[in-house]
């Protein structure tokens, strides 16, 4: 079932559907099946060279290429935003090589590839979330030997993870790890959730959508099947907590979303806005307003917040 995109408008017809050849996609799918069967376990795969540098999401792109079909609708976010260079490039890459529909709306997407965030809107069973992962090994911080970390996973020797958290508390008075916060999956494997803020960790737990993780440089794939138990590691007397803000989103007034701080000028003025651009604009469309919103035609924080402020 070779699928080739025939789009006479440009010269992409030389590429196979979604760029990768069918054999490679099969290989990745087999890897994905194994990863789904052993939640949280890092499965090695023969990662390919992609037409983008490592660090730009080559792992996630390969996973997306292996699972995407012609009827899928793709959303790509980077730090929650649909409009960064990385997100736009990957979206265009698949629009070109797979001729699939793309969207910025979380609800409309069937596949969401992400770097650093999980959308605020609750995901559904018919959606797949693909994470771009730079360093898949949570034990790497304290144990540089791959042979040893594999053994530690095999034997469930996870004391080291708490050494890292202990060190955090000893230095900062609390667990200062705010992203790539380690989790225990299905009471078995400790997993690095990729550099998402720990704010998003609770969303991974019992998520309805399938979660797939691809690390291109390290050539590892792992997965969380729908409704998997995901527990953030902590101490009895220092329980896991997510970040919270005193402020609300300056644009949509949300108090329940992950906020980015935006410096407005060199006089110390700043504002907080939702990192999830789709969530923010949807709220604004529904009439929610933050204190720094000016009821202008919306692009929300997608258009530069500082220029909006400057227009004041």
């Amino acid at each position, binding site marked *: 079932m070779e699928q080739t995109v025939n789009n006479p408008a440009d010269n992409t017809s030389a590429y196979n559907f979604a760029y990768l050849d069918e054999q490679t996609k099969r290989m990745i799918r087999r890897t994905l099946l194994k990863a789904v069967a052993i939640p949280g376990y890092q499965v090695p795969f023969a990662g390919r060279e992609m037409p983008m540098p490592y660090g730009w999401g080559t792992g996630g792109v390969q996973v997306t290429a292996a699972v995407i079909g012609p009827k899928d609708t793709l959303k790509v976010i980077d730090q929650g935003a649909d409009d960064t260079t990385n997100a736009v490039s990957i979206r265009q890459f698949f629009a070109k090589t797979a001729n699939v529909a793309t969207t910025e709306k979380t609800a409309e997407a069937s596949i969401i590839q992400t770097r650093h965030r999980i959308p605020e809107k609750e995901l559904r069973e018919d959606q797949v979330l693909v994470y771009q992962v730079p360093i898949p090994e949570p034990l790497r911080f*304290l144990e540089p030997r791959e042979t040893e970390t594999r*053994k530690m996973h095999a*034997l*469930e*020797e996870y*004391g*080291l993870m*708490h*050494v*890292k958290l*202990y*060190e955090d*508390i*000893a*230095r900062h008075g609390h667990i200062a790890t705010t992203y790539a916060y380690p989790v225990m999956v299905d009471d078995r494997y400790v997993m690095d959730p990729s550099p998402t803020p720990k704010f998003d960790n609770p969303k991974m737990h019992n998520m309805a959508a399938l979660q797939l993780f691809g690390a291109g440089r390290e050539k590892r794939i792992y997965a969380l099947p729908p409704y998997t138990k995901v527990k953030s590691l*902590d*101490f*009895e*007397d*220092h329980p896991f907590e997510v970040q919270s803000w005193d402020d609300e989103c300056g644009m949509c007034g949300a108090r329940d979303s992950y906020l980015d701080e935006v410096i407005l000028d060199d006089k110390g003025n700043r504002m907080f806005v939702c990192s999830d651009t789709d969530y923010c604009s949807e709220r604004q469309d529904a009439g929610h307003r933050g204190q720094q919103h000016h009821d202008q035609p919306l692009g929300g924080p997608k258009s530069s917040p500082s220029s909006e402020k400057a227009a004041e």
Partner: protein
Amino acid sequence: MTKMNDPLLRVDNLTMMYGDRIGCKGVSFELRPGEVLGIVGESGSGKSTLLRSISAQQEPTKGRVEYQTRIDGTRDVYEMSEAQRRLLMRTDWAFVHQNPRDGLRMNVSAGANIGERLMAVGDRHYGNIRSSADNWLGKVEIASERLDDLPSTFSGGMQQRLQIARNLVTSPRLVFMDEPTGGLDVSVQARLLDLLRGLVHDLNLAVIIVTHDLAVARLLSHRLMVMQQGKVIESGLTDQVLDDPQHAYTQLLVSSILQN
């Protein structure tokens, strides 16, 4: 219940070959709870090879190492599953390396170094782990205020004491030591010897200590094994072996000590 006189460790005909070359050959002995066994001999005599083979770090070519576990009775350590063996090694056993850098995590604090074994066996209360670590720091005579400092900021003697604390925090019954006072100044050695002697007595530790320093062996060990070319050529009561050596090599070794 373990009876006082039941051996904690039984080594039977242990042989380690590197191809045709002998690492150690035909070594047998028993060790009781609270007993300190010194292994002496010159560099290359097979002391460290023997220690690695006994301490489950290197499977011997031949022979058995049996240990009386706390719950499972006597077990051949090389017939245990790897998971069981590694658990044993980080709970009921301890290994003190000559170079503290080999036995410490240099990039985390002293407290985390001591607490690691506790966390490895499931301790999940930060406050308790920290107070245990603090308590052990005191036992090895390091000031509490150094609890959050990196070991790299410690002197060699302090690092060695920290390594000992890190190992003893799970109350092991058997401790392996490879030249624990090597590489330390004489005055620092004395302090460490005193500390070790106290801990061995107070905690009723069984210890196998490899050293080339006969003075250290005399002060710490109850029994001695003298090794030469991979074989135990003489063994017995420490002062008997040192004061009335029977074997030619032991006599040479003893007569080579500088007197002060």
